């Protein structure tokens, strides 16, 4: 890889040990993946935040680098934590877990990283532009920014996104290059897509089959932001899809040729089979919405449906602190709470320790959550539409 004189000096240790190692990490990844040079990135998004995911080794690493003076050079957002960092006591998070989680948040804050704690940075104040190079690491946020916004990021790991944050650059390879953004599989959708859950089921089926390749969808007539975030999240969970195109919907689709690709088709039967396969339980002990983090529109919808109702089982709506703030102002939070539900900020069901909180079966409308909950949280899952879930618990 070609390095500038200034970059060579960082490698020789001129800017200190932290910068030397972080820059070396980027150079090494660039060499492994055949990058020609470093390119500036507009923002970073760092995963590996929940104490449940990174454990004591992660806490020690982050505190060490924070103490050595590592500082973010570009706007950097953080993935969800293992708990609501303000209302954790109310959610019965074990204090031993909370103590470690707060140490992690403090270390990030000390490094100048915005402790946004969300998987939807684009809904919470970090919105890249079309074509902008970024270094993000949460799989659904990667998919959304590449596919729906048309920004450019590889699937960064926690440390490589941190390195991009400290250095302001990323190695130029993979999805940063035009030629690697072309579709590899044509997906014909012959299924009715109405609810966000339908998009989650579609994403699950397609991700399983295309793995880490780039699908090009035909037959999706319309989809809103929430549905696209659900689709991308599910494909990134059941597969490793970092970019997808949808004919007449996503911004790079018209630049792509869809002829001569391997083909795949998805029918109503495939979606029905997916719902039934992923539903390993029958009656939920808890319903959790907001994987990826709920938008204000999703919260408004839930709030309207719950007006004047009483819930028999707990309901969590996971979102970012920023969106919760807006929901508070509008009274959505109060309506949901009056029904017996909660708006939980900063965390989600996948990274919080719900298995230690007495829950065995979780109801979700997210293909991604349905994919991860059995393994990460030892949960049985009820995967269906929002309305059906709310009927089960009211």
């Amino acid at each position: 890889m070609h390095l500038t004189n200034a970059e060579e000096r960082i490698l020789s240790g001129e800017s200190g040990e932290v910068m030397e190692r972080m820059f070396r990490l980027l150079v090494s990844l660039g060499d492994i993946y055949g990058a020609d040079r470093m390119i500036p990135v507009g923002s970073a998004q760092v995963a590996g935040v929940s104490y449940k995911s990174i454990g004591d080794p992660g806490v020690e690493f982050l505190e060490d680098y924070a103490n050595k003076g590592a500082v973010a050079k570009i706007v950097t957002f953080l993935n969800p934590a293992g708990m609501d960092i303000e209302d954790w006591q109310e959610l019965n998070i074990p204090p031993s877990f909370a103590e470690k989680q707060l140490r992690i948040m403090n270390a990030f804050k000390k490094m100048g990283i915005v402790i946004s704690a969300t998987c939807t940075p684009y809904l919470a104040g970090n919105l890249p532009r079309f074509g902008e190079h970024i270094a993000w690491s949460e799989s659904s946020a990667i998919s959304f920014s590449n596919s729906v916004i048309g920004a450019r990021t590889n699937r960064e790991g926690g440390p490589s996104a941190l390195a991009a944050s400290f250095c302001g650059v990323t190695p130029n390879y993979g999805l940063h290059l035009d030629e690697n953004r072309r579709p590899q599989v044509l997906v014909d959708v012959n299924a009715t897509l109405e609810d966000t859950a339908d998009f989650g089921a579609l994403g699950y089926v397609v991700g399983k089959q295309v793995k880490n390749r780039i699908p090009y969808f035909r037959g999706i007539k319309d989809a809103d932001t929430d549905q696209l975030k659900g689709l991308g999240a599910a494909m990134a969970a059941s597969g490793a899809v970092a970019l997808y195109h949808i004919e007449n919907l996503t911004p790079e689709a018209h630049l792509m040729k869809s002829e001569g690709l391997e083909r795949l088709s998805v029918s109503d039967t495939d979606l029905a089979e997916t719902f039934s396969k992923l539903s390993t339980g029958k009656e939920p002990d808890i319903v959790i919405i907001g994987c990826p983090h709920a938008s204000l529109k999703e919260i408004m919808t839930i709030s309207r449906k719950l007006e004047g109702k009483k819930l028999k089982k707990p309901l969590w709506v996971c979102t970012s602190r920023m969106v919760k703030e807006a929901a508070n102002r509008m009274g959505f939070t109060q309506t949901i709470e009056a029904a017996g539900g909660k708006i939980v900020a900063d965390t989600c069901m996948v990274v919080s320790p719900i298995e230690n909180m007495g829950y065995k079966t979780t109801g979700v409308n997210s293909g991604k959550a349905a994919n991860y909950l059995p393994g990460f949280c030892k949960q049985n899952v009820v995967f269906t539409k929002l309305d059906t879930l709310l009927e089960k618990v009211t």
Partner: protein
Amino acid sequence: MEVLKGRTISPGKVEGESLVSREPIGFYGGIDAKTGLFIEKGHELEGKSVKGKILVFPCGKGSTVGSYVIYGLAKNNQAPLAIVNKETETIVATGAILAGVPCVDRIPVEKISTGDHLIVDATAGTVSITKPNL
């Protein structure tokens, strides 16, 4: 003495005794960062310490948190002197670089046995092997 030529992942030069695993190593859940001991049940190196050894294995496996375990080993003075791989994937590369542990890959690791005396010049990307006198 046989000299093998590979690729620099993390620079540095050290000399020491090798500890070889023919299986991939997952550092998270595989090695305890505080004691440096292999804790993965049924792993061929279970119970062995990596401290002060040149750890030779084909490639990494498992959780990305493995990078932080390598860092933790170094911080707790339990780290291997160097890492030699056939193919260093990003988890091990990240950990070795963050921790400052010399690391070389693209080395035919099948030529190395536990107990061999190695000189690892990770900056030059070479590994020199001296077999013990039999």
